[in-house]
């Protein structure tokens, strides 16, 4: 394979690819990253619309949703299912893992492309096929999957129970293909980082985001297998008449929950770690300080990755599993907050006494940090079984995981997008619009999800379409309406980003190579980087976070500058 990569590289050096090879069936990691990004942003809009429809129904039950119409209870079930599926698998994964991983890993390690460029293209097209199948599933007779994004059997195992036949089968197929796509992507990430690092780029000179993407890839690859098997088993139950999850045939519904969460909880870190990686790159640049505790952050990441395999049953305290399992899983869950606390403290210590610039990426990084700390703290509540028994399946849980995932996916995602936009597209984004977008998003996000904790503690259950049907929930209705108004404003605030994105793409100020004065290798090449990235493969002499070091004239030291800081500054 090695010689074919080299041969391919040599051949691509000479001929610029034509339209189809350059834009559609591209093997260039940067193009593939943008393809993932576009598809992920498309799905983000779809996911946002499902949130809007659900929130309207919850605040004003059985009134017409403006722009849509009435929402029947079974359609509401579909919205709940699709919102979770879309946001986790079709927004978070393609943007944080695939788009940023693909764009950054080769550039940051000094490689010309991924180890297997054609496999990379295949991963994207399998993901596109999964997207197409999920989209199709919304329009088949009987409707789309409506058994929750977790698809618990027996509800999901027999078409009679939900009235959904092909919708759920296609949903399973879309998920299986998505997993296959990210498995191929994971193989590519890991092989690339192991074998294509530039001379001098040792593992302990890798930017932290590369470490985070790699750890996420390993966690994903080692946890998703049982669910791939599990999804095939569920499909077989529905189509072939097997009884894996059906008690009447000797099967066990709880088995699915274990297989699902054995993947489902590591998946949280598959999303969270790349999000953290993005802001770990941004914080030192805008604090003009080396990252605090570079190696301990890496060790914490690995420890967290390992622990993520033994926390899954905290989703199942009330599932009817053996209650003796509750205590061990509570303990591991609370322990996993230790490595994350270390990473968070390292970020705060990096900020300490830095000369901080509150640019748009930095604001979003700070937003990620503050919102995640809040969500991490409620996570400790949920993780202890005695508390969880009370708040399980209420909106408290919904509020908690939006605090952790919204911070990783959207705050960190926007931080990353605004930070690397100049490198990706060769133009700067508008700072004023960026700051406006941040403040609107930050204020309305909290306006949605802080009250949601209160609603949850008041006992409101997840996945109900009409809270006013329950006597004890009626006093919460004004709060529900407040949340809905804030949610609509949160969604509308994203239009600022859309305008900024497209306006900057066309008329933004042309970006120089290194607009943020950062050290990592991607800033040493033109914006956007050419095909094959580097004119000559760089040689790396330093770690990625040498800011404000000693007597330099400028306060940064790019990784590929060999000379002493002073000379480097003059060159």
């Amino acid at each position: 394979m090695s010689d074919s990569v080299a041969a391919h590289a040599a051949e691509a050096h000479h001929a610029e690819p034509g339209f189809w090879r350059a834009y559609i069936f591209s093997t260039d990691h940067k193009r593939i990253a943008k393809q993932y990004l576009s598809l992920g942003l498309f799905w983000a809009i779809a996911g946002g619309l499902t949130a809007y429809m659900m929130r309207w129904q919850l605040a004003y039950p059985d009134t017409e949703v403006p722009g849509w119409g009435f929402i029947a209870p079974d359609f509401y079930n579909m919205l709940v299912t699709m919102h979770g599926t879309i946001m986790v698998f079709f927004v978070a994964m393609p943007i944080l893992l695939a788009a940023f991983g693909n764009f950054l890993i080769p550039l940051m390690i000094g490689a010309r492309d991924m180890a297997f460029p054609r496999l990379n293209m295949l991963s994207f097209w399998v993901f596109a096929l999964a997207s197409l199948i999920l989209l199709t599933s919304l329009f088949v007779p009987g409707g789309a999957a409506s058994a929750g994004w977790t698809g618990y059997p027996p509800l999901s195992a027999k078409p009679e129970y939900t009235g959904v036949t092909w919708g759920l089968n296609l949903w399973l197929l879309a998920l299986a293909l998505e997993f296959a796509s990210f498995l191929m992507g994971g193989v590519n990430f890991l092989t690339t980082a192991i074998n294509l690092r530039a001379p001098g780029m040792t593992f302990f000179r890798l930017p932290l985001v590369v470490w985070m993407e790699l750890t996420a890839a390993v966690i994903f690859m080692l946890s998703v297998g049982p669910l791939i098997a599990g999804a095939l088993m569920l499909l077989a139950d529905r189509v072939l008449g097997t009884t894996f999850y059906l008690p009447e045939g000797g099967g066990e519904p709880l088995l699915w929950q274990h297989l699902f969460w054995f993947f489902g909880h590591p998946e949280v870190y598959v999303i969270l770690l790349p999000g953290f990686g993005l802001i770990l790159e941004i914080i030192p640049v805008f604090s003009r300080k080396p990252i605090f505790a570079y190696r301990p952050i890496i060790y914490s990441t690995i420890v967290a990755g390992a622990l993520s395999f033994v926390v899954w049953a905290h989703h199942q305290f009330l599932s009817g599993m053996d209650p003796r399992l509750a205590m061990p899983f509570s303990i591991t869950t609370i322990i996993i907050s230790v490595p994350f606390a270390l990473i968070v403290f390292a970020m705060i210590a990096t900020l300490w006494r830095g000369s901080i610039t509150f640019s748009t990426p930095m604001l979003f990084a700070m937003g990620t940090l503050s919102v995640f700390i809040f969500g991490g703290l409620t996570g400790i509540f949920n993780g202890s079984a005695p508390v969880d028994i009370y708040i399980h399946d209420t909106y408290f849980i919904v509020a908690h995981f939006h605090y952790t995932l919204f911070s990783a996916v959207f705050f960190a995602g926007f931080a990353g997008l605004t930070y690397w936009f100049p490198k990706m597209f060769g133009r700067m984004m508008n700072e004023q619009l960026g700051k406006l977008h941040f403040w609107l998003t930050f204020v309305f996000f909290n306006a949605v999800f802080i009250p949601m904790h209160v609603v949850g503690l008041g006992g409101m259950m997840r996945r109900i379409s009409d809270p006013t049907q329950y006597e004890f929930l009626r006093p919460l209705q004004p709060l529900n309406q407040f949340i809905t108004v804030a949610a609509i404003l949160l969604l509308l605030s994203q239009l600022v980003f859309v305008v900024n994105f497209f306006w900057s793409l066309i008329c933004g100020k042309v970006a120089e190579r290194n607009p943020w004065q950062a050290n990592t290798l991607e800033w040493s090449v033109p914006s956007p980087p050419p095909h094959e990235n580097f004119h000559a493969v760089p040689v790396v002499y330093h770690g990625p976070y040498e800011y404000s070091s000693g007597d330099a004239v400028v306060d940064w030291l790019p990784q590929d500058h060999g000379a002493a800081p002073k000379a480097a500054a003059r060159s």
Partner: protein
Amino acid sequence: METGAQTFSTEIPTGKIGVWWFLASEIPVFGGLIVSYVLLRLGGAGWSEASSHLNFTFALANTFVLLTSSLTMVLAFAEVEAERPRRVGNYLLLTILLGVLFLAVKGFEYAGEIAKGFTPGAGIFWSFYYGMTGLHALHVLAGIVVNLILYLQALSGALQRHSHRVELAGLYWHFVDVVWIFLFPLLYLT
């Protein structure tokens, strides 16, 4: 052009690293199935009785077929090392034929069981039996396709430039073989 080519950070061929990571991700797929099977079986009744209806003789014969195919795969790799391309092709063909024989026997077994009324819906043991052996059979089929591509490349002479691919295909083929070594006692011997 010297500075233009991609350099490599380790001595290990890139393709081999990729295949090993792929196999690492395959282990949990079968691992999840096997652990589910074992745990449910430990907690339930009637599994041994159902298992006694399996065709032990066929499965034993099939185990030998698959083990032999691993041998021929290794011999193909040995011929790559010895730089005898014609023999590489012959051993690949033998591996393919043994794989096909395995699937044919498996299909014969399935037909016999279904004729006796043991369909995938006949009970939890049968769900697992068809699920585990079916997923394994799909992996055998994929291995046959890979080996077939290599065999055609061997015939056209194209394999000589990519002879390391035989080793990579072999890694996968042995993995599929090892999976069967777990499935055979778990399903047939207990």
